[in-house]
């Protein structure tokens, strides 16, 4: 024990005692300088804490444990379909919000204002055609990805025991996505849209008991017109986005809690 009292916090002496390379010296000097003033060590601790919390439960995956990677990697694209659907949904949401600046849901006039606004988007708005193209393709590709995702879940038995509720939620989500697509299909109010709407009304009317009531609610009557267009518009841009986004969050949250089901 030396007679002279050592200062535990004399970092400069500590630095000299150590045999450091120039790079290490510069790094540590800078770090000490900043830390003396901002005390970043506290925040580092927070970060470290968060890191360990995140990595707290990291069991080896089944694939790692049994060294199945060589058998399994070519299925990974199919395992990413769910995540890809979410990304495609986000792309569709962003491009759809931008399209909403230019579209007006009005069946007045000949051809209708709605049709003319879509025509304006396609012909006059800068990059409008690109926006509509991205929106449409994102929707189409999302539907394809969702169908394939469902097949993947089926053939790997991922809907089984602890995950039945998420399968049911998935069925609801895929149905709502199709309604989403259908309502969007009607918005340009062209020939295809009008007659697809006609089939929708007939389908609703064929349903017993709730049919007429449903047709009134969803299509605003038994013949297509302004009421139908506005209802489809509100469904497409107001109701379904909230409902579907919330359900997607729940769907992903349950996956997060339960973990990814791997085939054994």
């Amino acid at each position: 024990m030396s007679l002279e009292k050592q200062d535990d916090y004399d970092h400069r002496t500590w630095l000299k005692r150590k045999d450091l390379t120039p790079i290490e010296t510069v790094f540590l000097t800078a770090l000490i300088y900043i830390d003396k003033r901002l005390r970043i060590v506290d925040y580092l601790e927070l970060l470290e804490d968060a890191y360990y919390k995140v990595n707290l439960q990291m069991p080896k995956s089944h694939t790692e444990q049994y060294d199945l990677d060589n058998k399994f990697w070519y299925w990974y694209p199919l395992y990413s379909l769910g995540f890809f659907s979410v990304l495609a949904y986000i792309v569709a949401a962003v491009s759809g919000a931008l399209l909403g600046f230019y579209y007006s849901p009005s069946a007045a006039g000949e051809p209708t204002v709605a049709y003319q606004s879509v025509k304006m988007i396609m012909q006059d708005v800068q990059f409008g055609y690109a926006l509509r193209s991205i929106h449409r393709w994102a929707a189409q590709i999302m539907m394809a990805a969702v169908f394939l995702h469902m097949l993947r879940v089926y053939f790997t038995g991922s809907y089984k025991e602890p995950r039945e509720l998420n399968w049911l939620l998935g069925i609801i989500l895929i149905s709502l996505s199709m309604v989403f697509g259908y309502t969007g299909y009607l918005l340009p109010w062209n020939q295809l849209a009008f007659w697809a709407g006609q089939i929708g009304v007939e389908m609703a009317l064929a349903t017993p008991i709730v049919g007429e009531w449903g047709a009134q609610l969803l299509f605003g009557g038994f013949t297509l017109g302004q009421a139908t267009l506005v209802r489809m518009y509100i469904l497409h841009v107001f109701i379904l986005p909230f409902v579907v986004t919330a359900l997607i969050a729940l769907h992903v949250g349950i996956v997060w809690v339960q973990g990814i089901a791997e085939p054994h």
Partner: protein
Amino acid sequence: MSDTDDTTNETRTDGGEAATDGGETGIVAPDDETPTWQERKTRKSGLSQLTYEYFERARREDQELREESDYVERDVLGFPTWPHEIIRNLSISLFFVGIMILIAAALPPSLELPANPSSTPSIILPDWYLYWSFGLLKLNPLNPGLAVLDGSKLISDQLYGVLANVVVVGAVAFLPFLNKGSARRPVEQPFWAAIGAGGAFFSITIAAIAVQNLIPLPLALQLNIAFIGPVVLGVMTYALLKTLREGYMYGLNRRYYMLRPPK
């Protein structure tokens, strides 16, 4: 695990060593501030006490299952979404998003003629992903007529189509309650794999019924193809998987036993 030894086992739920066969659990011991389940239980009464009692039981059940586990395989139910899955998915999915935008740039959608209620187009179709549903709506040739009603139909053709949709979606939704058990791979359950393959194929053949007027075949033949085709594919899948099964399961089991021999 019995119902009577609640008091003897209570201390174990919070303080006991977690002995798992997959190594450490990573469950953090609660710090001093955190009340134990027992403390929470004694503070409560009625329903909330029952809830905590159940939690305690559930926790003890997990622990005993871990201790007594002689499972050699299948002890992992899932693996972490973050970061394993998300990072892998990001790399693949962002690539596909790029492809998606490329397609959008190359193939912008067309705008058809404006809506005209007075002229019905010869082809009325929804988007492709609704073809299967649209095909089910067109099943009216299969709607049976009853002899007692002079050949008239019990339910209208449209209702028949709507009901077909309800039946199909309901059957798919009901699936997890029909097929239970821990089997995951198609080879383990050739029957259900055959159902799946047949169902997936049916979604395509029934979509062809939706565009029946574009296909130069008589409707009866189209309907036969739509319904018999999936059955044939299902039988083929079943036969194939049954054939593969033995060799496949042999390899799989050998892999398990080499890595983790049974106790």
